């Protein structure tokens, strides 16, 4: 395009100027036709975060689409760059400037329309992809806009604290454990909260990521598709042991999960009786036992800073 309106300055007078634009276009078309199928069929299925859940699979497709769309753009830039280096290299003794291309309406229009189509297309595609898998695995706050349709999701509460995640299962008596175990083929609703500072729950291969805020509930959805293990990491810098705040979750068969949940519920029955009633947040003002314990211990003001005004807060 630019090449057609910017003929080589060093071309000999009277010689027919090749159709550089057409050459570049054809080279670009052939390479794009080769590279894009390779990305889609060969590279795409191996891109993170995999396909362990519907949100992960959706994100994998999105990243693949982005790669397929961006590859021709990158190819065009590289092809033009290399073509220009070869074709329009300055000849020895040639001190002449190239012709100005200011005011070329065709180039301007092509540039504006092309970029607008790409950006708006990605905007629409991204918005649809955010809605379809019920929020795409992201935290949607306490009142999620997008919910999965049909069936009752498995409720799993993620409780973050410095420096460990624990998980509570309200549909199984409300037991709390350090193990995150899920059944395959089931919608899961994560209710994410924190007992202290801001953390972030990131189940990498499930493509679920939700901030864990104290005194707030943050909801994220996913549907497990395959059995296996996945990594959970805190993705919000949260203090000394932030880098060690990770563990491994498991997706089991339905029968395997049921057996694990039933067994764990029984094993932790004594502990569960001492836990506060299941709630979406656990600050000292809303958990009766905790508030009472702090009050009796003289640790007033526990709802905010945990320790009261008799202990001035240090920086």
């Amino acid at each position, binding site marked *: 395009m630019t090449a057609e309106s910017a003929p080589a300055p060093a071309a000999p007078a009277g010689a027919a100027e090749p159709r550089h634009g057409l050459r570049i276009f054809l080279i670009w078309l052939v390479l794009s036709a080769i590279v894009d199928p390779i990305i889609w069929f060969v590279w795409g299925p191996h891109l993170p975060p995999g396909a362990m859940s519907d949100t992960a699979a959706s994100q994998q497709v999105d990243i693949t689409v982005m790669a397929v769309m961006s590859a021709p753009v990158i190819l065009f830039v590289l092809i033009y760059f290399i073509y220009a280096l070869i074709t329009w290299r300055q000849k020895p003794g040639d001190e002449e400037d190239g012709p100005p291309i200011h005011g070329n309406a065709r180039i301007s229009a092509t540039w504006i329309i092309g970029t607008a189509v790409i950006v708006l297309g990605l905007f629409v595609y991204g918005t649809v992809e955010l809605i379809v898998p019920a929020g795409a695995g992201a935290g949607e706050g306490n009142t999620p806009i997008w919910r999965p349709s049909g069936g009752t999701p498995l409720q799993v509460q993620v409780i973050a604290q410095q420096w460990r995640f624990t998980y509570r299962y309200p549909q199984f008596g409300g037991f709390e454990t350090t193990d995150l175990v899920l059944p395959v083929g089931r919608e899961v609703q994560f209710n994410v909260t924190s*007992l202290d500072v801001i953390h972030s729950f990131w189940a990498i291969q499930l493509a679920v990521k939700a901030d864990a805020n104290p005194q707030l509930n943050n909801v994220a959805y996913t549907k497990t598709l395959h059995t296996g293990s996945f990594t959970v990491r805190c993705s919000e810098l949260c203090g000394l042991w932030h880098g060690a705040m990770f563990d491994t979750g498991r997706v089991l068969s339905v029968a395997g999960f049921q057996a694990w949940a039933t067994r764990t519920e029984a094993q932790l029955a004594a502990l569960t009786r001492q836990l506060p009633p299941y709630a979406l947040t656990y600050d000292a003002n809303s958990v009766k036992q905790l508030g009472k314990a702090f009050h009796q211990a003289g640790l007033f003001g526990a709802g905010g800073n945990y320790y009261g005004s008799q202990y001035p807060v*240090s920086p």
Partner: protein
Amino acid sequence: MSLPVRVATLLVAFVAVVGGAVFVVVHYLLGGPPVEDFTVGHVAGQPVNIVMQTDASSSPTAVPDHPTWVSYFIKNPQTGAWVHTTLFKVPANTRVNMTILGYDGSTPIRNQVWGHVTGTIGGVAYYGGKPVTTVNGWNGPYLIQHTFAIPSIGLNVPVEAGPGTCLNGPCTSNAHSTTTFSFMTPSHSGVFRWQCFIPCGLSFLYGNGGPMSTIGYMGGNMEVVG
């Protein structure tokens, strides 16, 4: 500016930069609490006995940096002296018999799940010889002061509250609680962090700053040597 002045300025700037870098490396990267080595003289197959203590605060002589902070101490296996550190080295695949002397008072537990004993041999800990598996940290009189937890091996033990509070650690003659338990070290080498899960840093936001966020006080590393 004359040449000698320029050269002198350059040298001063160079020395300042290098000096600053050396200070950072020595003070922050190479500094820190000592490591108590329980592998010296260890006979394969024999257990390792570790004794620690918790103190509400310490003497300025023992802990000059932050004597007002709550802290663990470890008894040196060779000399028997109390050392202000939370770093210790143990052999792999070895039974550790841990004794924690509690010279601190009680603190309500933030998350009751840490009142549950996990990862010990037999799934049990002992308060003064009495077995416990789950301790209610919210019912007064409060039974727990801190926890000793190594998350990556699933170990968590709530430490019994002491009958009093010793403010001049390391303490030897005051009344104290005694929490004992045993666990197996991993079969492979590595560094395993341990920490207290009760936010006990008085004067810090949510009780989690200061001693909770500084190695040498309420958290540290267990280095396992294969």
